């Protein structure tokens, strides 16, 4: 199970594999983000600004 833990190569390639996996995940999400439609982007980005600023005095909730 842990046979590779002490192999010299393990020290070298574990971080590299970690890096490669992360790079793949990163690339996929970048592609996904770039492919998003403009309208969708605009809708999502404007969500916090959609609120109607009305208030009411607090009552017993």
């Amino acid at each position, binding site marked *: 199970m842990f046979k590779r833990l002490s192999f010299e190569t393990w020290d070298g390639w574990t971080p590299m594999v*970690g890096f490669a996996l992360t790079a793949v995940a990163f690339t996929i999400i*970048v592609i996904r983000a770039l492919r998003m439609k403009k309208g969708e982007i605009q809708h999502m980005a404007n*969500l*916090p600004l959609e609120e109607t600023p009305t208030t009411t005095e*607090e009552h017993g909730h």
Partner: protein
Amino acid sequence: MNLNKTTIEFDDRSVRRFLIATLLWGVIALLVGVIIAFQLHRWQLNGKEFGGGEGLAWLTFGRLRPLHTNAAIFAFVGNMMFAGIYYSTQRLCKCRMASDLLSGIHFWGWQAIIVCAAVTLPLGLTRGKEYAELIWPINVLVALIWVVFAINFFLTLKRRNEPSLYVALWFYIATIITVAMLYIVNHLSIPTSWIHSYPIFGGVQDALVQWWYGHNAVAFFLTTPILGIMYYFMPKAAERPVYSYRLSIVHFWSLVFIYIWAGPHHLLNTALPYWLQMLGMLFSLMLWAPSWGGMLNGLLTLRGAWGKLRTDPVIKFFAAGVTFYGMSTFEGPLMAIRTVNALSHYSDWTIGHVHSGTLGWNGFMAAGMIYYLVPRLWKTELAKPSWANMHFWLGLVGILIYISAMWVSGIMQGLMLNQVAADGSLKYQFLDTLKAIRPLMLFRAIGGTLYLGGFILMVVNVWLSVRKKAPVNGTIEVVVAPINPKSSFWKMIFAEPVLFPVFAITGYCLWFLLPGVYAWAGLVLGVDMTWRTIWLFIRHKEKWSAWYDSLLENWAPFSILVFVAAAAGGMVQIIPTVMMNHAKNVEDRLQTVYTPLELMGRDVYVSEGCYNCHSQQIRMLVPDVLRYGDYSRLGESIFDYPHQWGSKRTGPDLAREGGKRNNTWQFQHLMDPRALSAGSNMPSYHFLNDTEADLKTLPARIAVQQTLGVPYPPMTDDVIRQKAIEQSVAIAQELKTNGLYVDPNRQIVALIAYLQKLGKFDEVTPPEHIPGTPVPITAQP
């Protein structure tokens, strides 16, 4: 479709409660921070100057520092985070929080936890792990209240009137899930009484789990929720949408995926296996990208609104807060480079780094949010806008003084400690370096005081603004229509984009975990599934895109995927280290088991928070070895529950303290450190000579140690106590011969016994390596 238009009143009472709690606990957290900062400069503040003789136990640095860190993280930032989450979640979901009752339980439960922490920590009741000090009954309460919060939050998502989940909500989901995972794993303990427990991990395992938790407490308690708050409140304050929504997506996923792997950078150059150190360093460096992506996204959201900087305190605090986020996330990866870490670790540089994050990023984002919320939650205007401006400048100058002092102190002390003379000897004694940085400790305390002054100004300003004002709740008119996710939960989980990568990863794991032919079968599976994943992605591109769009409207599968992304890093690092049969995998040394009295002394050491100033880990660095002795081996702390490797050296390392000095020296040093170490800033521990050692619970403690795997021989309760008494009498006798009359049944005697045991080990021969079987792991390549 039947469209039902209705007006919803938000639960802003909960927001106000959390906001007020933020102000209250913020003052306390900062005040305790200022007190302990002054204590480091002037030891008499450990109680002597308050009429406490040589000092007061509950005022010592070792007990107050955990109070400061816990109050800053969980009380100040915790309450601030909850205020921001409650306010923005309701507005982004266009619905009221799911349950007023759960909101109430969450608020009052969290405050009860803080009060319990504020009482127990100064009493010396602690688990002895940084930022995880609270005793087990409080841990259970934290877990329960967190679950209440999670249920309330996820039910709100379920009942929302807005189909899309804005990026701020993603960050909140990541926070809730990951903090639960981190907190539970790192707090797994076996109680020995209602106020004491031992963690289930020991030695290197405990160190790894602790810093997986500690580092990610910074990531998922101090960073992700505040990033969510940034993504909601900055566009609101600037009155324009976030600069790049695309960037926010990349920011989120890469941050969640990378952050969790970086914990081992807290253990560089130690006995931690080398591959873990490399992994921690590499992922820390990779963090530069998402962190700066997020910072730039935040700052560029202010494009066109920079003119407001002069007049609007909200924008001012947010802009500075995000800038500090950028600065500290640049500095962090830099310090995670092994060679830089050799100098920075255990020094004040780390303290400066942490405070540029907490004071600059958390504190300023909190201030910006509070100045934004107060006028809206009480329908009023800020009473003293100029005070907010003054608060900003006091805070900014305070932080700059603080972190500059810590940079100079850390680098100077690091350089001095590492200087070796031409003859190969060390150039400076530890105390020389401490004396050199003493003035900088004063500057740090002054910087902190300025920051506290600014914060108090805000508290008074808020009070002046809201007194005699009626609280108001926000309302919104929405079209209530049931949100029908495009796909069911199971369809989202059992979809191509999830299944095939999972099969691929499973294959690689089997290759790693299994021996011989099974390993090759795992490799074939992994490669085959990788190929199929790529092929399917190219072939079904549109389908996969639709799946992702659908995921953003389905909080449950989204949350599960976030959990998988966050858990992956921890599992890869922790599972091999935890499953390892440690006693058979040590290098050439195995820690000698503590006697009952030594174990009791160790519990005193933990209780007094000695780990806040003393490490027990000699790194594989020439100056460390020259100063403290042979570098620490994995096996030398393997029976330490919890580990005490430490993270800061205000005093010297103690890993090989045992036998260096006699019992008389240890006694006199604990009673009056300056009598033997002129210039020391250590508190006097004279009160340990007045406190009776707790022999009653000793058998229960040993029983738990045995359960955890510490090889104690079978002993009856009487034998355990008898052994403790015999050893303590022997130490008292030795002290008596030197004219020191000490009651053997005192904590100070047990502590001396423990200190004299530090660094004791048995030589062992590692088992011969049979190819294809587990072999000893080593810290060096």
